[in-house]
């Protein structure tokens, strides 16, 4: 089996090297578009790293969010940046600033960097050689969690408030984008038949995959965030192909779906608080379906939020001003 170890060692080595190189290139690139493409490649390699670290849950999440939707979100952001100021001017400004770096501005970041590296190195070296962490605790409690996948058990049961707060963060992100102003209208209906037929195939498949990830999350890698971002991708695709949405749907139903995830979480937490005496401590018999309910609501909200983030400003239909 030695040859396998050598091959795996080389694979890991090349992966780490590429990852560091890409990270450097992403940060040092002056061309924003190039940086986005490099960042997508970075996310892609990151997913492979999680695979090698035997964390398929995170690999799946990284594939869905890091390498997938983030690229689309960043491109939408670049599109809006371009609308604000033309690129060449930005490049001129940066190169002018570059001319005279004073000595402290050179040395201080270096010192900070060395300190951080030393700190990280110390933290890494002071770790115990073999650490079980919380694994035994999780294993012990698995029977009470209502699901079979330990990651889902941790995210939605043992530490359910983590996921609740993440939902709120997403909502806040969207609210801050909306509060920046700028009402956007839906793009006109697309007449490109090739794109339209691509959407006709991809959107149903994306919906099926999203439901599948939601379902499989109970006993294997998957779950609300992966499912939500796949759903969000379906929304992005529909937006790009000129999907027509009625104004009345954009007003209340959309907002309802956006807060659904956090809302259901909070309602369940409140009900449990009065009946069980603790926030998000599910009774064992009900844990399974409660988690599924929470995850379904969260999936819808995450999907809608990501699509809305991609869209940018507060959506308005074409007719309405």
């Amino acid at each position, binding site marked *: 089996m030695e040859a396998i170890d050598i091959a795996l060692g080389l694979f890991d080595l090349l992966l780490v090297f590429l990852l560091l190189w890409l990270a450097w290139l992403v940060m040092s690139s002056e061309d924003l578009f190039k940086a986005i493409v490099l960042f997508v490649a970075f996310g892609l390699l990151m997913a492979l790293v999680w695979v090698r670290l035997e964390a398929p849950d995170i690999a799946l999440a990284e594939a869905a969010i890091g390498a997938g939707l983030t690229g689309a979100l960043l491109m939408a952001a670049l599109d809006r940046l371009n609308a604000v100021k033309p690129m060449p001017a930005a490049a001129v400004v940066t190169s002018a600033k570059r001319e005279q770096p004073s000595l402290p501005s050179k040395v201080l970041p270096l010192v900070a960097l060395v300190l951080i590296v030393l700190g990280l190195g110390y933290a890494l070296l002071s770790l115990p050689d073999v650490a079980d962490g919380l694994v035994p605790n999780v294993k012990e409690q698995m029977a009470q969690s209502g699901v079979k996948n330990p990651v889902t058990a941790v995210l939605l049961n043992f530490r359910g408030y983590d996921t609740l707060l993440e939902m709120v963060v997403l909502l806040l992100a969207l609210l801050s984008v909306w509060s920046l102003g700028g009402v956007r209208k839906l793009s006109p209906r697309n007449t490109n*038949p*090739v794109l339209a037929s691509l959407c*006709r195939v991809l959107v*149903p498949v994306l*919906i*099926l995959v999203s*439901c*599948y990830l939601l*379902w499989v999350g109970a006993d294997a890698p998957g779950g609300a965030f992966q499912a939500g971002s796949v759903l969000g991708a379906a929304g992005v695709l529909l937006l790009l192909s000129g999907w027509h949405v009625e104004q009345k749907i954009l007003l209340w139903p959309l907002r309802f779906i956006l807060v659904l995830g956090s809302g259901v979480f909070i309602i369940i937490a409140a009900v449990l608080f009065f009946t069980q005496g603790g926030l998000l401590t599910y009774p064992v018999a009900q844990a399974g379906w409660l988690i599924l309910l929470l995850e379904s609501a969260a999936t819808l909200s995450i999907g809608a939020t990501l699509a809305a983030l991609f869209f940018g400003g507060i959506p308005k239909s074409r007719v309405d001003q």
Partner: protein
Amino acid sequence: MNRTTRVYSILLKVVLLALVWWVLSDGNPHSWWIGGMAIVLALLAAKSPTSQFSISLLKLTLFIPFFLKHSILGGVDVARRALRPAMPIDPIMVDCVLRLPPGPPQVLLTNMVSLLPGTLSASLENNVLTMHVLDKQGSYANDFLVLEEKIAELFSVPVLSPGAGV
């Protein structure tokens, strides 16, 4: 479009989506309660404009070997050109007047052209397909006509007036 074809096309979609779900869930029989809901949702999203074209499954199975053979040939052709030191390419843009009706037949043709040897679709506008051809000495014109006839057969539509050319 009459009632039977509409029922047939919805049924075909349900079967295809169910097949995808079966594959996704690894044939797990306990997954179908959520699978059923997923299929209904997907169907609602896939609500396509009424299309007068339909494909029989028999014709599709006959079409697949043709497609596989030619896409492999396409891969071999471009791989050979990329790997040969002399890199024998001599590209040109060609406009073709399509003999297929607009809609799914033209879209399928556009996508297929990009996978077959030496050709790449670059624009589909008003029944004219602009292709990028990798080697102008190649047999692309003939291959294109054959492909068009195959697709017409697949959709059971007649090829219109003979009009392909530069």
